[in-house]
């Protein structure tokens, strides 16, 4: 479609009002603004977890329920109703170990976010590099990539994650030594990254393929610009919004996947607080103590919804069809 101007064609005609910028536009959207607020709240809680915990006076590792009598029954269930919610333990006590649920949740955000963000960064970077390069180069590279992507996509991902995590773990850790916490994180980030980059790379490849034929790329090439210049200065800025949307949408996906793996028992292990493991434990004691599953379940729900909404808002704000083009 030919882009047409509504401005009378004078040499120095009035220029349309400046673009308000994506952030402004997200804020203008009520839903987007609240989503952003929730996301920021989660981020702040993650960053300030030690501070909040200190103010609240509990930590996520002490077995309060086991050490003080009267909190847990012999079989480990909280004595007080609603999962042991009390003035001391705002969200109750963990059945069994008797840790504080509130601080567990709080520190759980850190686990989720750290893995999700890292995986999002890795997959986005990888996706961009491969997608843009392959899309631009075309030819045999492109066909090889297409085949590789098909093969990787045909793999049942979850199954592979299940099978691979212990393998990678045992490859990386010397059996005699204790596995450092960061190693678990690293393994999860690695397995997520192994597959997460493909969809982005595929969509970028398609975008770049069409951009490659666009006049401005042709023009840069005709002017003798290097491949590097074309990719970095001409193509990359044009896929920026796609990247941003991908990254925002990737975070909740990885948070959910991480929780799913933990639920299936191959995620992060004790004592690192983790929502998926809390839900798994919650499902064991659900009939006796539904509260313990509800807190992480709802927190995860809120978190994922907020991120998804934010992703939508980012997409809307960056969508060229939504108004910048004209």
């Amino acid at each position: 479609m030919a882009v047409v101007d509504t401005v009378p064609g004078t040499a120095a005609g009035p220029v349309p009002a400046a673009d308000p910028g994506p952030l402004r536009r997200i804020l203008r959207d009520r839903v987007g603004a609240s989503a952003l607020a929730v996301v920021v709240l989660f981020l702040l809680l993650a960053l300030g977890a030690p501070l909040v915990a200190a103010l609240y006076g509990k930590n996520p590792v002490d077995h309060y329920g086991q050490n003080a009598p009267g909190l847990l029954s012999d079989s480990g269930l909280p004595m007080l109703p609603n999962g042991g919610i009390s003035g001391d333990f705002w969200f109750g006590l963990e059945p069994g170990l008797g840790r504080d649920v509130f601080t567990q949740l709080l520190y759980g955000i850190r686990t989720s976010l750290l893995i999700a963000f890292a995986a999002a960064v890795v997959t986005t970077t990888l996706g961009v590099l491969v997608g843009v390069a392959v899309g631009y180069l075309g030819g045999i590279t492109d066909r090889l990539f297409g085949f590789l992507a098909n093969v990787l996509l045909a793999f049942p991902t979850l199954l592979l994650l299940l099978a691979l995590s212990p393998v990678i773990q045992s490859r990386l850790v010397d059996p005699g030594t204790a596995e450092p916490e960061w190693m678990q994180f690293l393994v999860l980030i690695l397995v997520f990254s192994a597959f997460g980059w493909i969809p982005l790379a595929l969509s970028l490849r398609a975008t770049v393929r069409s951009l490659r034929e666009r006049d401005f790329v042709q023009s840069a090439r005709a002017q003798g610009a290097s491949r590097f210049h074309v990719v970095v200065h001409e193509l990359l800025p044009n896929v920026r919004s796609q990247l941003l949307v991908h990254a925002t949408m990737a975070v909740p996906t990885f948070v959910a996947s991480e929780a799913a793996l933990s639920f299936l028992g191959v995620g992060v292990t004790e004592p690192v607080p983790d929502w998926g493991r809390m839900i798994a434990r919650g499902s064991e004691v659900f009939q006796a103590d539904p509260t313990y599953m509800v807190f992480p379940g709802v927190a995860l729900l809120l978190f994922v919804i907020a991120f998804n909404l934010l992703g939508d808002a980012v997409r809307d704000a960056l969508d060229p069809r939504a108004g910048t083009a004209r």
Partner: protein
Amino acid sequence: MNSTVPGAGVRTAEVESTAAETVGPVLSVRDLTVSFADPRGGAPVTAVQGLSFDLSPGEVLGLVGESGSGKSTVGLAVLGLHDPRTTTVTGSIRLDGQEVVGTEESALRGVRGGKAALVFQDALTSLSPFHGVGAQLAEMYRLHHPGTGRAEAGRRAAEMLDRVGIPTARTRDYPHQFSGGMRQRVMIAMALMNDPRLLIADEPTTALDARVQRQVLDLLGELQREHGTAVLLVSHDLGVVAGTTDRTLVLRGGVEVESAPTAELLAAPREPYTRALVGAALRLDSVPGTALPTVDEPAPSRTFRPRTVERPERWLVEVDDLSVRFPGRRRFPGLRAEPVRAVEGVGLRIAPGETLGLVGESGSGKSTTSRVLAGLQRPTGGRVLYDGQDVTRPDRELRKRLSREIQLVFQDPYASLNPRRTVAQTLDTPLRLHTPLDRAERRERSAELLEQVGLEARHLDRYPHEFSGGQRQRIGIARALAPQPRLIIADEPVSALDVSVQAQVLNLLMELRERLGVAFLFVSHDLAVVRHFCDRVAVMHRGRLVESTDRDQLFAAPHTEYTRELLAAVH
């Protein structure tokens, strides 16, 4: 294009005497205002404001105006096709005495396709790609003749298609299997299926070649006369309107500027805007190489030197026996479709400082040829010399030189600018690559370039979308000028622009040509533009060069049948 069609005025008189005075108007629009709500909550856009006009049976009314002036909005409002949730329509639209504004959707269904029918600009997107054309026509019939059997409707559809020259054997085919002109004819056949009282044709020929455009317009006129249908012809092209309409209404920014019988309007426009619009339209009888009138400057003061290009000692560009083939689509490993022969045995010469026009209908290989020259496309065969050097397999040195001395200007000014780079960044690239200037100097030079093309230094840090189409094309030209090229390849540089903007850009190009002495390869399908701007013209047809001569000679006495046809279509 051309404006004065002999006999246009006569026809107008004829129609008025027979139909318009005897019965009431088919369409009567009073004080029509249409505004669109901004989905993001901004101020609503008023696309049409206080428009009134009448259309008598059998009359053809042209609705002209530059892009975005609200022409299509009027057309859609007549059929009540706007989305009622985002659109506010006030005023009155009476179709054959029946009010459309505010009428129930169900009542409008009988009107749409029955009393009034629509033909849109692009037939490929307007016909459903998933249904056969015959079926689409038959549906149109059955919708307004309830109780008709499938067979009967199918027969009528086939008949109608036959009327517009589509063989009956092809009624089962799908739209994509037809050429653009055929599709447009299918659209017209569909619109006329139910003998509507009113036909709204929204830019029905914009997407077509001049030749096909002529055929379709002729067909439309023929059928219209036969059925006595009133036609609202929407167009931005005065040339189209001139040859077809009885009366013309000029819109600007949603407001009526002027309305008069077409011949009158073209001969003696009353409003300055109309005058400019008429003046800006190039005609085949205007003096080539003169400054063109624009809306801001209806009587151009500037003149250009008459152009003389002698046969040079050494051609800047020599192309011999050039051929380009694109591999066919891969089917099964080992099987490939026939290659596309985009260019076959083309030979061209361009002298330093000369402007060569390359014309031909769509797909004739113009762009491909120019891409070879720009080094963007490797030819399959043939020889291409630039300044005596073979450019088909350039070494580093030559490539660098070519990329400096040959520059490109593209058709679509928006697509040719990177939307994510500021004007300064866009202009910086060629300067950085081809001049030894440092950063500050490059910025200074960029500002100079902008001024050269009539923009200002303060525009440097803006993004393309902050400019109008004409301004964007100027930026594209400034970029081409940056490394001081010897040859500029301009691929349809004004086709996407409104007439008045087109005139401005052509003026600028002529001015630069005179000042800088650059050679041009000017690709266009618009003969009037080529005639005005070029020294020599080469005509391409299906990948072959059919003619290449001096401008005046070509337009006065074309050698080949094909060229003659092309020229005839413009007249």
